[in-house]
């Protein structure tokens, strides 16, 4: 088993593995790396090691990456799940929420952020960047306005990686869409015949679509245009079933349905899953896939064992890119297991659902 003596060593090993996967998606070494990170996190992440000891699942007893204790994403709200000494916690990603106790805290330092960037970019590029040199309309705030949002951070990296492309961040620090700027940008794309990729949360798309409705504007964006939508409403807009939202994006913006890609991510994770690739036909049901350095499992909520193919259960993710926190997470999402990915079903309803909306936007 790999024994990491420092965070730098662990980060380097994960970055190297990510790079290896770029050349060979079936690259060996996931399990060994996961176990190595487990030992490292057990040694340096106290709340996590307390959990492991309580469950008697420690480096001495765990020999398979599937047995690494999972941390409930919700635990990031009340515990500092980090291997970083307090002085090194330079960047903080928080989930959205109305009060500090509602919000997850995921700490990063320069080195873990480097891994985060190394993880997010190739998988994003592989799914949302194709030969059309699209402009980019981000329905999220610029990094300076929402520095604690992992989604904003991710979009900032995307903008920087695609620096030659014209882009616009069309939301303020409160996630309010500057609809006029967005419309001006889209209008320009349409008149210049420049395809555009629009990226945002579901509620941001609803805000934009509502504005277009009110103003009686319909776009037929140039062919090659695309959209990336990431779930969650958090009471920020009316909720639309995903197929309806996508139909509206096609109807009001003229983005072909095959070029609308959903992203699944959250502030507690450092890798993202997508449910399609630009230029590839999407079969129904649409399946999410993580990159080779993050593995999703669908487990029975009764026994926490893997469910059979076709069965539904809780989604767990072992994300090697979570070097500085906890690599094995149990999400609050229900999913169906498929041979080649997972189908996202719904959120777990944690309190009495009647009368309450519990959609949680963990990413923003």
């Amino acid at each position, binding site marked *: 088993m790999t024994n990491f003596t420092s965070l730098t060593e662990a980060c380097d090993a994960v970055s190297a593995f990510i790079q290896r996967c770029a050349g060979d998606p079936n690259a060996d070494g996931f399990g060994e790396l996961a176990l190595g990170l487990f030992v490292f996190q057990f040694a340096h992440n*106290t*709340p*996590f090691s*307390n*959990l492991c*000891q*309580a*469950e008697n699942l420690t480096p001495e007893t765990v020999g398979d990456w599937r047995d690494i204790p*999972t*941390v*409930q994403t*919700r*635990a990031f709200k*009340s*515990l500092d799940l980090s291997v970083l000494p307090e002085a090194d916690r330079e960047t903080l990603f928080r989930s959205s929420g109305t009060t500090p106790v509602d919000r997850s805290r995921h700490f990063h330092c320069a080195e873990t952020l480097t891994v985060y960037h190394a993880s997010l970019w190739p998988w994003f590029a592989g799914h949302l960047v194709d030969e059309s040199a699209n402009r980019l309309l981000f329905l999220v705030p610029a990094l300076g306005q929402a520095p604690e949002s992992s989604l904003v951070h991710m979009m900032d990296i995307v903008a920087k990686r695609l620096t030659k492309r014209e882009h616009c961040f069309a939301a303020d620090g409160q996630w309010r869409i500057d609809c006029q700027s967005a419309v001006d940008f889209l209008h320009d794309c349409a008149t210049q015949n420049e395809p555009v990729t629009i990226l945002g949360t579901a509620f941001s798309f609803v805000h934009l679509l509502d504005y277009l409705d009110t103003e009686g504007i319909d776009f037929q964006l140039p062919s090659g245009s695309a959209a990336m939508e990431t779930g969650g409403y958090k009471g920020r807009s009316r909720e639309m079933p995903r197929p309806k939202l996508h139909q509206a994006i096609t109807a009001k913006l003229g983005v072909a349905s095959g070029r609308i890609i959903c992203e699944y991510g959250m502030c507690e994770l450092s890798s993202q899953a997508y449910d399609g690739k630009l230029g590839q036909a999407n079969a129904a049901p649409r399946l999410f896939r993580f990159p080779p350095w993050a593995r999703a499992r669908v487990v*029975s*909520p*009764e*026994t*926490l064992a893997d469910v059979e193919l076709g069965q*539904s*259960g*809780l989604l767990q993710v072992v994300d090697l890119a979570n070097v500085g926190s906890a690599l094995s997470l*149990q999400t*609050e999402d*229900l999913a169906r297991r498929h041979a080649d990915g997972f189908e996202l079903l*719904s959120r*777990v*309803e*944690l*309190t*009495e659902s*009647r*009368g309450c909306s519990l959609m949680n936007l963990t990413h923003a």
Partner: protein
Amino acid sequence: MPEQPLDYFLADKPGAELTHSLIAEASRTLRRNRNEYLATLGNEQIISKLVEVANLWRSPDYPLRQMALDADPEETGFPREVLAAGLDACFADWTQEKFFMLLTQEFGDPTRLQSFASQPNRTYSMVNSPPLIAHIAPGNLPVPVFQSIAFGLLLRSAQFVKCASGKSLLTRLFGHSLHFVEPGMAATLEIAEWDGGNESLESALFAEAYCVTVNGGDKTVESIRQRLPLAKTLVGYGHRVSFGYVEKQANEVMGTQTVISHAADDIVAWNQHGCLSPHVIYVEENGSLNPARFAEMLAVELEARNETMPRGPVSTREAAAISTARRFYKIRAANNAGAMLWESEDSTDWTVVHEDERQFQSSPLNRFIFVKPIEHIDEALHVLEPIRESVSTVGLAASEARMRDLALPLARWGVPRICPLGQMQRPPLAWRHDGRPPLGELIRWANLETA
């Protein structure tokens, strides 16, 4: 009875196409049957038939009861043992004496249902019952529907029960027992199922009904309120929550095991579904029974109950909610972050979480209970302020004298029902649901003033 398949109510006929005009026509037939027969019956006649129905349901070999208990838990919502206990608790209360007590409580003089009876000051009053009541049945428990139907019969009202799709079996079985005992009374009852919010069917029903009762989520009640013509009476019961409260000397008076056993009774009854089941049990600190010790003993009791009355399977969604909450409390417990957890092994059958945080916490249900320490009743009322408007029932474990002391501040604060711990899911027949009169809201009064 019955060897042949159930075939009487609309809901008995799978695939029957319901239409606006069919609902309207069925409603008119019910009203006509009511006018011709039910309206002519006396209290004794109706009550004796209801008692007969209840006695059938209490007989272990009654075929319809057996059908209910043998049914797929997915259809009834409950495994055999849980359902049997719930049905027994309900029908044990259906006695002639208790039905008359209910009428007396509501109307003073039960004869007011048929004619004028005198009041002070030379006035007379009688009850005007709605000719047709529409019930929008809750999806979780069967018992409230049985009671609603019995109350409608007491008022001599025709009734149309709308169940959620695939959720009508127990209501139909109850309807068939009524049909067996007294076909004339059953001829004023219709049971149909469709998914809530069907405007076409519901507008027909609401147009024909004089009064609509709704048991369900707040959204359901609100949606119906908006669609119901102003002249119609809406009796809506939205979502409520309940909790237990163990006074610090309760174990000395009642015995520790008794208190634990009563708490377990309330947790396993209907697997905690329904507004009367506890989410949290508050245990007073500084007594001889430590709250954490209470939680630990409760865990042992729930494990034992799972042998005698298994919780049974739950949906993936329900299990996921339990599993998620457990995983969250487990890491908190491991970090001494004010939580301890006890759980069934390799299943979500039961869970006890002891949490120092005193705020009310909604449970994922299905035998998942929070135990929280509390200093005294004033502290409880203070931390419960956010749910003040939503409390249904408080189950108290205390000596009789202390129960009265505790009940007064609870009642003044707004709790509509206070009962002994262990009885939370067994309200008496005449109980006032959410503090409201069970029959009084369904009817209109007619007054006669004489010179």
